């Protein structure tokens, strides 16, 4: 019976419900959402792969590929912490739902091309 005051107050005030998806709250700063790799920056050092507690990353230095199993990633951000060139980052949006099995495969530019490009950028600067 002591709850009466409480529920009546609820009835006569606005509901606490946030009307998602019509109403979306801006994410908190630093929310660990989707993991992203700026592949152009990545040096394929494998540090992330070695540190990942979920073992969901696969980096191939020779082929210059970076693979991630987004279904196994636990969004801990350890890989981001260890990445020496800060090519990894976590976006503040969570990963969208999907109906299919997904895999992320990123192909870095061949070493030569990349270096050329970097040089050019430096020159321009």
């Amino acid at each position, binding site marked *: 019976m002591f709850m009466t005051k409480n529920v009546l107050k609820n009835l006569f005030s606005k509901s*606490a419900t946030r*009307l998602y998806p019509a109403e979306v709250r801006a994410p908190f700063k630093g929310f660990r959402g989707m993991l992203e790799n700026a592949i152009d920056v990545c040096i394929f050092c494998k540090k992330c792969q070695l540190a990942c507690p*979920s073992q969901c990353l696969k980096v191939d230095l020779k082929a210059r590929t970076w693979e991630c*199993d*987004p*279904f*196994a990633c636990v969004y801990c951000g350890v890989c981001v912490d260890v990445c020496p060139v800060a090519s990894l980052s976590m976006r503040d949006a*969570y990963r*969208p739902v*999907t109906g299919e099995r997904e895999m992320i495969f990123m192909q870095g530019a061949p070493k030569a091309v990349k270096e050329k490009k970097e040089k050019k950028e430096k020159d321009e600067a």
Partner: protein
Amino acid sequence: MSLTDWINKGRLKSPWVVHFDCGSCNGCDIEVLACLTPLYDVERFGILNIGNPKHADVLVVTGTVNHRNKTVLKNIYDQMPGPKAVIAVGACGLSGGVFREAYNVVGGVDKVIPVDVYVPGCPAKPESIIDGVVKALDVVKTKLGLA
């Protein structure tokens, strides 16, 4: 509108959920539960956590499938009358997550029953779970040939 049209309308507006925790760390579970509470209140969409497979339209699975709960998962799925949909929630439900290599872990939910919607996260956010149910309704729509 014919009766079937009305029924189809009902189907899209009244997804009753049965939630089975397949060995989750509770992280995803409490987020599924949070969806029912005032801040998210999924009853807005007609979603009820009905707890009984025989009354449910959507099976929400959290956690890794292990050797003991896989039959349970299958049994529950089998007891749901069609049309029905399955949502796997969290890294564990999707693939086994961080526990994939543990000896008692079979893997993701799709190793045992067909999954219609995958909700990533560790744990998945309540908003993401709501998205998952909405997506599941899309799947139902497609299955009914309405989309």
